[in-house]
């Protein structure tokens, strides 16, 4: 009996280890590109410099936002192949409705994403059509709708504020203020947690560990903001990514909704018999995915400066790849928002680094494909050993 519990604990430890393995892989990739971009003008390399790092994060924003939504869809045992087309359609509609004014055109994009998510989610959850089929159909149908609406033309973004969503930075002082607020929140939440544990009669976390839990994240945040400020401030798309990632992490880890998504993906029969309304939560996951696709379409359209009919093509595969690289199981029930965003960051790092090195286009594709398969291969290998 005891030895069984011990393997249980061991297993938990290795699963935590897996998340750190990916973080380690990211750091290795970063250090490699830093080393590889050393030249006579840049004795320390270009890659992790403020300007390039800021650019890297901006490139991560759209995929990262989509990956958070995709994670929830995959965790409950589904898939969404349509989001690339949804990004294209929602972006096109935002660009076409600019005459309604700034706020209506932004809301229109998110509403279109939400409605499509609701429609597809209904077909999956209530009509029992496999999500692969529904969204494969969506991938084609929504792209067709874009062509009809835009008549195949590219529509420029004319409202300056809209454009700035994808390109501008916030004032460095506001960035610092945000960092200070974040640090205060970290301190308060750690103290609150300890009080709650005391109230429940659980062992409180030791002072040393509490200090570490406050100091380490705080230092990371402050260093991050200083680095960003060196490049002109925190980029607006990155603020959106951080907000979506934090909200997604909270929803998946600390709400009944998140808990139910993992249960549905892990064992739908057990979830149903435990009183969980599977249909409702699967629909909700698709709605969230749709709304996040709408948001991503805004960031993408603003960054490019125009909505073209083929915008968003293949973005669904980047989002799925991000989740998978970050340890999400396509069978459902397993994966974290942290991992998915990490996966998006790894993909963007490869893109950015290889472009800096002038790696030819074909080789970039081969490397990205190889990394995806290798990441899952390592995961499977580790799991068979565990």
């Amino acid at each position, binding site marked *: 009996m005891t030895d069984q519990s011990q393997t249980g604990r061991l*297993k938990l430890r290795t699963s935590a280890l897996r998340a750190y393995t990916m973080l380690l892989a990211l750091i290795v990739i970063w250090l490699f590109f830093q080393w590889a971009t050393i030249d006579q003008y840049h004795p320390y390399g270009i890659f992790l410099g403020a300007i390039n790092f800021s650019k890297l994060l901006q490139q991560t924003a759209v995929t990262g936002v989509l990956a958070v939504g995709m994670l929830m869809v995959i965790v409950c045992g589904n898939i969404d192949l349509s989001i690339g087309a949804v990004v294209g359609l929602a972006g096109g509609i935002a660009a076409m409705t600019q005459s309604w004014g700034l706020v209506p055109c932004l809301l229109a994009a998110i509403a279109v994403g939400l409605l499509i998510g609701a429609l597809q989610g209904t077909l999956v959850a209530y009509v029992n059509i496999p999500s692969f089929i529904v969204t494969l159909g969506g991938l084609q149908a929504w792209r067709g709708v874009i062509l009809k609406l835009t008549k195949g033309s590219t529509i420029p973004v004319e409202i300056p504020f809209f454009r700035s969503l994808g390109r501008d930075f916030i004032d460095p002082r506001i960035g610092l203020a945000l960092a200070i607020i974040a640090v205060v929140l970290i301190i308060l939440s750690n103290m609150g947690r300890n009080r709650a544990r005391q109230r429940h009669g659980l062992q409180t976390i030791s002072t040393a560990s509490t200090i570490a839990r406050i100091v380490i994240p705080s230092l990371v945040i402050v260093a991050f903001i200083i680095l960003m400020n060196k490049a002109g401030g925190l980029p607006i798309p990155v603020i959106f990514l951080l907000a979506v990632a934090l909200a997604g992490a909270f929803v998946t880890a600390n709400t009944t909704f998140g808990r139910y998504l993992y249960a549905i993906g892990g064992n739908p029969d057990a979830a149903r018999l435990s009183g969980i309304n599977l249909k409702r939560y699967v629909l909700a996951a698709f709605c969230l995915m749709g709304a996040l696709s709408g948001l991503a379409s805004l960031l993408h359209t603003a960054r490019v400066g125009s909505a073209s009919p083929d915008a968003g093509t293949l973005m669904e595969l980047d989002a799925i790849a991000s989740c998978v690289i970050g340890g999400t199981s396509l069978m459902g029930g397993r994966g974290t928002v942290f991992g998915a965003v990490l996966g998006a960051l790894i993909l963007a790092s490869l893109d950015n680094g290889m472009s800096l090195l002038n790696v030819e286009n074909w080789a970039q594709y081969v490397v990205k494909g190889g990394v995806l398969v290798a990441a899952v291969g390592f995961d499977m290998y580790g799991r068979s050993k565990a």
Partner: protein
Amino acid sequence: MAALLQMQNITKSFPGVRALDGVSFDLNQGEVHALVGENGAGKSTLMKILAGVYPHGQYGGDISLEGASRRFTSVRDSEAAGIAVIYQELSLVKDLNVAENIFLGREPRRFGVIDWEDLYGRAHKLLADLHLTIDPRTLVRNLGIGQQQLLEIAKALSQNARILVLDEPTAALTDAEVETLFGILNNLRARGVGMIYISHKLDEVFRISERITVLRDGKTIDTVATSATDEPRVIAKMVGRAVDQIFPESTHDRGEVIFEARNVTVEDPSVPGKLLVAEVGFSARKGEVLGVAGLMGSGRSELLMAVFGAHAGRKSAEILVDGKQVTINSPYDAIDHGIGFVTEDRKRYGLILDQTILRNMTLAGLRKLSGRFVTDEDAEVVAGERAGADLRIKTNSVFTIVGTLSGGNQQKVVLAKWLLTNPRVLFLDEPTRGIDVGAKQEIYAQINRLAASGLAIVLVSSELPEVLGLSDRVIVLHEGRVTGHFTRREATPEAVMACATGHAQVAA
């Protein structure tokens, strides 16, 4: 002449359980030898050894065919020796037709491609030999379950099987199909095929078999000529065991009726019109254990599933909680009305195996334990650790992955999950299936403790001693209908088994 098949002194252990303990069994040419015993007696394990599912080296003892010792290392080995096992779960490919299924993997070929004419010709002859009127080109999907069962037998014979094992072959058959099956078996008997017939239905056993072997607790109790015995004597051998040794003495203080189900009727979702449960009613009192006895396929689980709002097909029922009629359309409703359901098959219906003990424990009661939208992990840990200690779940921490626990501990986690919903009525379906004796006794003690604390408990089990040892009252189901009502004092194994096999009816 040596017997067709001789299995001698077979032993087989699983971690913590000795499934077979020196079992001997033999079979003659042209004989139907029935193998009977309660669930868990070891029948399936014995047949899996014969079929090569558990290869040589994983069991003790000796198997010989016509006097020659054989060591099967795989299913293929055993098949090559002429042994065919027809399991309860059929192994046909539904989207291939009858002939394709019969010759799957052994298609007659000419010049490297399938010789369809030969294939259909041989299939036709095979079916005709068995007096089966099935078109070889029919898709298996379009056959009834009974015809599929007969097709499995045809398939086995096409491989020149000399020994045919039939595991509960009539469970899904209509009366007419049973007659067809028996016709085929008699036909095979004349051809010299030896048959091992596993069934709970003793009337069939007595009709078809020459000899009967009774297994109990992994041991051979007796092998007798069918003509020299009768049903009561066989039943006595199947159930004979000192019940009071395992079951803690307990008298429950019965209170008022808090739960009642009336006129529960459940239709088979895959066969429209077929009733799995017909107009069954039962009630449960505070502090009482109501036992539901019945053989496999008697509708026990379907009854509970339907009452709990989890049956997939059509059903109707009137449900009263505290004397007031309530509507239960989903497990969510059932939980709201204070019903908990420890389902059978914990791996399939009960647990999310790669999540932690805590996540599993709090799943059903999450909305009561934690906040409605935002979870409170600390509150969960407190509740989970208390439940784990109450049920004596052996683990270092509630963060252990459930899949790494032993069966008994997994079952306790499922029980904890339902206790954390604060139920007033608790359904238990096969709560001790596949766990060792020690863990069983602990579960029995928990059931008595819960009843003593005022829960109404409805216990379904195919292990008769378990039902009799724990229940204050027993109802017996046979083919979806109630065939018996007993109080604890009246419920003898023989009387209950007679009702469960459809041989007697005892009115309330």
